[in-house]
């Protein structure tokens, strides 16, 4: 069974890539910190976090990991 690396289109969107890049440095980050750092609205960040969470890139437990 081959496990060739594949390009994930989901993470290519600039906003999602920024979120993942920011969180890559951290063990966890507060929602407000991510929102303020990326100049996003609550709803926009919530939407992107949900998408990333569904794809398994992060977990949202009040704090975003």
């Amino acid at each position, binding site marked *: 069974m081959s496990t060739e690396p594949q390009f994930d289109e989901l993470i290519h969107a600039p906003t999602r890539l*920024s979120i993942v*890049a*920011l969180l890559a440095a*951290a063990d966890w980050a*507060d929602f407000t910190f991510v929102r303020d*750092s990326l100049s996003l609205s609550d709803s926009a960040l919530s939407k992107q976090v949900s998408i990333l969470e569904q794809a398994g890139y992060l977990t949202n437990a009040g704090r975003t990991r």
Partner: protein
Amino acid sequence: MADIEARQAQAVREAANWRWPWWYVAATAALMVGISVAMDFGRDPATLIVVYCCRVSLLQIPLAARMRACLHRSRSTFRVNWPQAALLLAVAGVYLLARLALGAVGAPLPSTLAGLLMAAAYAAGRPAAQQMTARRLLARELPAPR
């Protein structure tokens, strides 16, 4: 790539700019003095040490709630955080030396006086330890300017 590095630097800066809140420093210093006073009045030192550790642990709960970003452990190593450990060892040294010296000269309430010195050393040293940690973190984690 530059944008990814910039985002990671934001998280590092957030962690480096975090400051220990005044109420935590004040509560810890008050706890140091309280335990020292109790030792002068013949309380069991082992019990007091347990009480101290429990109270300090309790203070960590509201402390963690104030942080907005916690760096990954690989970025927050002992090489970065050693000033915090050095501060605690230094204040313990201040207490022990002061208590020994005050006991030797027969001063009244030697533990209380040593505790006051220890609390003052802690309150004075906390900002310096914090600055040293932040400087080391930024130097280690932020990319060099191009």
